[in-house]
């Protein structure tokens, strides 16, 4: 699903941008959490949405809202929802999701994130932070979203969990054709894991484009106080200061090979 957002207003914010079909889009800069909430209709901004070429406005916005899931930094606990299953049932009830076989849907959602259906009976507070993230993703899948928005997804994930998370969102993108949105200020992770980027500044999308292009505009990023990924910054300095012929890479091992060649 391709989404073009035109002139969306919320408080001081005015937003224009595009979420390409089946992409992993990063959002960074001041207000990333707020914008990720606007994209996922947690906060309602007024304006025009164009979905797969079709213009959608005002009273019809709920049609897109249904297609977008939001995964918050952390799971909110409610004292009366003890197990994963109880929580999932509540989501289905609260959002009035039309599901023929809720039990099967719940098991299938867990299966997509590689958790066995025994997790349905797990009590929420016994989950570790990485298990919680997977359960949150499974919960977000209950509504069959086409876009999943994550606020600070890498928070509290170690390297192993981070790689697993990346494999999972890649699978959701490739196999299930979903668009993934990641909001974080960690430029190293954004450079490594996204396909497209939105940079926020002064209450708007300051600029956007494919990750491998925009992150190479080092002097522009620096001038506008956006964080530059370390690996890009290093390569940029070598090129600029000593005209070294090394290429921009995403993996440190590739850059080491390049250094070895050009020393």
């Amino acid at each position, binding site marked *: 699903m391709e989404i073009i957002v035109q002139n969306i207003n919320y408080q001081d914010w005015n937003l224009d941008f595009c979420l390409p079909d089946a992409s992993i889009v990063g959002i960074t800069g001041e207000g990333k959490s707020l914008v990720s909430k606007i994209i996922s209709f947690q906060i309602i901004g007024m304006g025009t949405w164009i979905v797969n070429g079709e213009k959608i406005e005002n009273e019809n916005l709920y049609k897109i809202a249904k297609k977008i899931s939001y995964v918050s930094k952390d799971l909110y606990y409610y004292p009366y929802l003890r197990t994963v299953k109880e929580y999932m049932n509540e989501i289905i009830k609260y959002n009035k999701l039309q599901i023929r076989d809720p039990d099967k849907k719940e098991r299938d959602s867990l299966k997509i994130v590689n958790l066995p259906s025994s997790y349905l009976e797990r009590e929420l507070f016994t989950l570790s932070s990485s298990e919680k993230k997977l359960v949150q993703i499974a919960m977000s899948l209950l509504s069959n979203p086409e876009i999943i928005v994550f606020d600070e997804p890498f928070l509290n994930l170690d390297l192993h969990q981070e790689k697993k998370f990346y494999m999972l969102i890649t699978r959701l993108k490739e196999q299930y054709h979903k668009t993934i949105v990641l909001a974080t200020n960690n430029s190293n992770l954004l450079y490594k894991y996204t396909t497209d980027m939105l940079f926020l500044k002064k209450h708007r999308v300051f600029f956007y484009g494919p990750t491998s292009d925009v992150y190479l505009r080092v002097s522009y990023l620096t001038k506008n106080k956006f964080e530059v990924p*370390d690996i890009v910054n290093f390569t940029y300095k070598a090129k600029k200061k*000593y005209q070294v012929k090394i290429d921009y890479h995403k993996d440190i091992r590739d850059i080491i090979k390049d250094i070895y060649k050009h*020393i």
Partner: protein
Amino acid sequence: MKENIIEIKELTIPKIFENFNISFAENKFITISGPNNCGKTTLIRILSKKISTKDSVMVRSKKIEDYKPIEYSSMVQVVIPKEMFFQEETVEEFIKRHIENLNIKKEEKPQQYTLLVKKFKLEKFQKNKMIELEDSTLLRIQLAISLYERPKILLLDNVLAEMSKLEKKQILKELKEFQLENNMTIIMTTMNLEETLESDYLYIIADSKIILEGAPQQVLEHDNVLNKLGLELPFMMDLSVKLRDYDVLKEIELDMDRMVEKLWK
């Protein structure tokens, strides 16, 4: 030799720690890192008296259970970023509410408020609502309140995770200064090894054991051990260690400009 401010012996918490031992030196900035589920947060919760421990934790040579809550909280303060804020509350209201709970004379409270706001450079935020603030400002306010009574020990649980590099650098610098000025012990947990570089001493824990410990830069030279545990080296450290293994570099260089110079000048 200086006495340890905290001694943990044979700590057992089901599923997390089994006969775990660790001790922390006084007046140091200490960082603790480790993979998911290694017990970092549990350790902070134990030290803030939220989990009971059956006599295995000594703080300043006294069992943690033997401290009265008020006595303990004036000595040990903890900052956990997920603490709930009242959305409609302004910074002024929030800080005043916390000063209410402090152990100072009532007539001195307004004056103390002014002092605190000034010291932590919060003047321009006073009328802002808590919900409108950036994460780094929120953390500054939490720190201001927790440092107010000059605790001997400050516990920080992964407080820098959401900040930009620049904000992290600034806060680490301020913490370090405050720690030196006030002879305080800071214990901070983190997943991001870059944040440990400013500290005096780093522990890597996993499976109820201390896997590595020492000055951060020396600990971080063990890239294979750390990667295997699931911890990522800061870029410059990773690059240095690998280039040194290839004999391209003689020693660790953490400054990017100097590294580029060393390689190509």
